[in-house]
């Protein structure tokens, strides 16, 4: 036995029924969180979560597990801060070990323009209740003496960093499972290997879904799909402004747990942290070429390997154990899309790009409230799909992390 | 030896460029159907009224003997070079945009002068000596 064996979660699988009050497409973090919050906050339990493969097998189980709220627009800062707070008590609430650990996140800058941008981030964060500070190089060294401030022999000097001390990580699988179990316990049916083939429509409304195991009717259908969301929306005759890009990551072997923060350089295109098991975990920017492919690429690995060893020289001699790929649904303004669609009966939560994991608790909570009350919660009202039509986009590219 | 190249750029309709006459002794790199890079100076005659013909001081180059050039390319160029020489090829070499003119005896590496520092940093010292 190892200390990370999942010892408590009990998954009780349902059987597909012909009718539900709510059908959620996608058994990733957002779908499961929506079901969890419907069941635990609103007593709505006649709910099915449909998962094409196995739960948490998409980006919810492939991301690099960073939880932070250092965004650039007030609407997003408030939303992600709600998620940070929900994460802080998720272990207590679910009585499950999600390996939540506060680490602090450093976004280092290497140019004057970067410095101004991250200093500006600290202002707007602080004004919205998020204590992001702007650090000097000396302060960075106190937090992470491993970082070479003279990156690349002075080509990319570290001039400062924005730092959110409350940023944390959690084990992605365990978050998914804790939420799934919590929903299941209240009677939610989570159905694996259940693929939505089509949406069933009655006039202008969506009234159910057709799966590989038969039809389900439901007055509310929620797409919490990652990656193939454009295809699901296509079934309802909707075009949504999402492009899906691969994003690659790797881990090294296990080493003594010693590197505390999450360190990132947007300029150099990577972020890195150490997992509870001691693996050094690194992620890259998204691939420019849109694709649904999970195939790993080589160029990303070699280019960030080059940059990482300049930034954290000790990493040169760590051995890479495994690389993998997630796919990111990028919205034009780098902000999620949540809420109603122009088609009655069909709700959506998407546009989770490279920032979906950190939003799982708050995203599910808000979607559940919308479903239960029929009113869009104020917290996610700015993220509605119609903002693109209404010229009310929330441009926040610089906050998406590396891409 | 690194040098700034005497280049004339000719941008013209592709069929006009096909018919164009170039100064004898010049090296003509057809970098695109509508774009020719003429190294060595002289007058280009092209029958496209709208052709853009300009002296272009933005390019540097270095001639390298065939054997060392091939050894270098094997360690810095991920794509196959033409097997028959003389030939023109272009693409990323050591992650820089480089154009190659490959003759039986030598290879000319052509790159934007603005990237000279990067080129020097990632090629053998003796090339820029």
């Amino acid at each position: 036995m190892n200390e990370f064996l999942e010892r408590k979660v009990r998954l009780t699988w349902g059987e597909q029924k012909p009718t539900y009050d709510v059908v959620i497409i996608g058994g990733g973090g957002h779908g499961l969180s929506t079901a969890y919050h419907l069941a635990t906050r609103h007593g709505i339990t006649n709910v099915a979560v449909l998962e094409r493969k196995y739960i948490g097998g998409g980006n919810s189980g492939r991301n690099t597990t960073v939880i932070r709220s250092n965004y650039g627009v007030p609407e997003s800062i408030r939303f992600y801060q709600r998620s940070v707070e929900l994460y802080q008590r998720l272990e207590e609430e679910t009585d499950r070990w999600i390996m939540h650990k506060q680490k602090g996140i450093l976004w280092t800058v290497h140019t004057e323009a970067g410095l101004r941008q991250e200093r500006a981030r600290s202002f707007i964060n602080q004004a919205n209740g998020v204590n992001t500070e702007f650090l000097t190089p000396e302060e960075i060294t106190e937090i992470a003496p491993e970082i070479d401030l003279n990156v690349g022999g002075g080509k990319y000097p570290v001039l400062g960093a924005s730092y959110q001390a409350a940023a944390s990580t959690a084990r992605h699988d365990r978050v998914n499972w804790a939420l799934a179990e919590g929903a299941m316990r209240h009677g939610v049916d989570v159905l694996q290997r259940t693929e939505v083939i089509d949406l069933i429509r009655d006039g202008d409304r969506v009234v159910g879904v057709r799966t590989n195991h038969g039809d389900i009717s439901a007055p509310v259908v929620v797409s919490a799909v990652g990656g193939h969301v454009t295809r699901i929306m296509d079934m309802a005759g909707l075009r949504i402004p999402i492009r899906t890009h691969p994003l690659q990551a790797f881990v090294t072997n296990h080493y003594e747990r010693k590197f505390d923060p999450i360190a990132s350089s947007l300029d150099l295109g990577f972020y890195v942290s150490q997992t509870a098991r001691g693996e050094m975990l690194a992620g890259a920017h998204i691939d420019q070429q849109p694709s649904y492919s999970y195939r790993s690429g080589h160029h990303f690995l070699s280019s960030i390997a080059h940059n990482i060893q300049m930034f954290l020289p000790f990493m040169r001699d760590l051995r890479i154990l495994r690389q993998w790929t997630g796919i990111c649904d990028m919205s034009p303004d780098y902000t999620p899309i949540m809420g109603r669609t122009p088609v009655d009966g069909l709700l959506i939560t998407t546009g989770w790009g490279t920032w979906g994991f950190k939003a799982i608790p708050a995203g599910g909570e808000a979607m559940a409230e919308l479903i239960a009350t029929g009113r869009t919660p104020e917290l996610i009202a700015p993220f509605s799909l119609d903002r693109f039509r209404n010229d009310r986009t929330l441009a926040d590219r610089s906050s998406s992390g590396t891409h | 030896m690194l040098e700034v190249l005497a280049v004339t750029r000719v941008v013209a309709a592709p069929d006009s460029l096909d018919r164009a006459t170039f100064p004898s002794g010049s090296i003509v790199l057809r970098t695109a159907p509508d774009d020719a890079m003429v190294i060595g100076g002289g007058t280009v005659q092209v029958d496209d009224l709208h052709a853009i013909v300009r002296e272009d001081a933005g390019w540097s180059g270095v001639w390298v003997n065939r054997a060392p050039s091939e050894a270098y390319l094997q360690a810095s160029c991920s794509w196959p070079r033409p097997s028959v020489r003389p030939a023109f090829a272009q693409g990323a070499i050591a992650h820089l945009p480089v154009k190659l003119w490959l003759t039986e005896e030598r290879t000319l590496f052509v790159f934007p002068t603005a990237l000279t520092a990067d080129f020097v940093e990632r090629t053998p010292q003796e090339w820029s000596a």
Partner: protein
Amino acid sequence: MSQMFDFAGTDVAFIDGDSVLTALVRAGIYPAGGGALCCEGDCPHCVATIDGISYVRTCQTAPHENLKVQPHPIDDYPPLPPDRGYGAPPIEYRQCDVVVIGQGESGREASDRATTSGRMVESFDANRGEEVIGIYDGPMVIARTPERIIHVDCEEIVVATGAAELQPACPGNDLVGIVTGRAALRLVAQGVGLGVTVAVGKPPNDLDCEVVEGTLVRFEGVDGRLAAVVTRTESGEERTPCDTAVLNLGIYPRDGLARMGNGLAVSVVGDAGRDATVPPCPSEGVICPCNNVDVDDLQAVWDRGFHEIELVKRATLAGTGTCQGMACMPYLRSFLADRGAALQPPFTARPVARQLTIGEMSAGEYDRPVPRTPLHGEHLALGATMDRIGGWWRPWTYGELGAEYEAVRERVSIGDVSTLGKMIVSGPDAESFLEYIYPTNISTIESGRSRYVLMLNERGYVFDDGLVSREADGTFSLTFTSGGASHAEMWMRDWGSKYDVRMLNQSMSLAAINVTGPLAKELLAKAGVVDPPPYMGHADVQVAGVPCKVFRLSFTGELSFELHHAIDRSVELWRSLLDLGGEFGIYPHGLEALQLLRLEKGHILVGIDTDFDSTPRRIQHEWACKIDKPTDFLGRPSVVRTNEIPLDRLLVGFRTERPTVDGALLYSNGEYCGYVTSAGWSPTLGHGISMAWLYHGSDGQLPGDVEIDGTTATRVPMPFYDPEGVKARA
């Protein structure tokens, strides 16, 4: 005299043909504790730290003098290594028709077949120290040899990696003294004594040892060393004492690379392609030696609903360690099949198939190239601080911000603007093409004149700005922002494909020096320019003997001339201007001063003052967007549509009595209402100036005065400085 390497301070002798592992075992050393050694790179039982690099398989490493080997921590993880600088091994790029991975019998046959049919073949074999790291799109193979990283592009890949011998899954399988059949042969061949040896299953032909009856139940040991093998026979358990147990429990295809190449032109031959028949389900014992997962652990998660192989992997961590499932995969699958789930395919195979360090992975990589202007050396000589701005190295300041600013406002200064995007457009459709690209009237630009232009995307949002100038010969000269030039060129070529136009990018071929200040004309006169072009005009003239295209425009707000010239004449021109300007008190200015000067004039910097969704209306540039012009232009439908929507924010100017900084927040009656995009202290005006996004209040009105950094900010029209533009037009 035999050769030695160092193991934790002890000399270990090695002989020809040894791996580090065989030499260690000969000396009675097991670097990672016990476990069934395979000697073929499949199991995790021989890893050690070699020359500071942990998790190295000693069975795949050739020994040499000076090698430093340290044991793998048994109960903990290895420490993070110290900083040893950075570097990468050499890389070699190859191209061929067929790559054959593995040169056993089936691999050699595959190579021969391909060679015979005239195809170019590259082969790799782990026994020759050539380890394939991964198969990627292309298809492409990355391999590592002791000397270098090799990168092969090919048409087709043949995987001939053979099969691994099954690891035992029973109690006691972590003892010292257990080896697979092939491992036994290798050790014996190197003269390593195995002591009293028994075989479980049929031993290799050349190995002479007793075969124990029955099926394996457990290993028993004393002080971590094997003492006996216990099997079950028809008559019950049988205990056979021994020093070494040689195992033949069956083989399992090494198909990781084949599965990694799924969907690519990859074929599999030999044992690697055999059916992955799973062994009987074990009843107890560790199945994942990397992460110490035993059958009870599998049962525990199975009982709680974890039935998918991926979920079991994630819940137990089986298969996520050093050997990436080589040891445990057969047992994971047999366990799940035994418990009633269908026999599930193995979980996804991902690179890297053989581990390599981050340093090794960086082979063939370089720093991102950053272009330099021809004046780079001049700036350094003048003591400039260089910064990467808009993708170029540019002078941020020469160390005297005040002097730089003052020279522009009061005398004359020069600045390096070589990084501007520059393009010539010609052709029968040149004018109509540019009319479509730009939201400004192009046809009314007269020969010899220039006009400021925005660039809009289809959504009607501003993504670049610059200048369009018509030449006497009917061609157009365009400029783009420094940082936006590459994108703008792609944009032009993309949309231009529908038009009969010719385009020449001159961004890196032409340098540009901005001569600016009230005495600019005097300086040019000294440089031989007697009749400079009028405001927003341009002309081809010689400046100090250097042929230039001189554009008269103004970003700084003063009388300005932008001298575009061939980059090989730039140093000469720069020095001449500094020299000739001496009597006028000339001093160059860097980007920091330029940003302040243009802020005083209210000129936007696209990407700093604008955002992804900046319409011309939001940035108060409707004057540069002629929605009524006779021809259609890119973004027009969007601009027309969004102009109907109530405005939510505006880019405006503020005056403050204390300095503010970029990013400072705006408050109106305590409510957040925007932020500063550019801020500065105007020495000329004697107060702070800011450009800022100001949001409309809930009443739909723009706040008037606001607070920035606790100080009152008064909204004032821009430009802050010389609003009538008298100076620029002087």
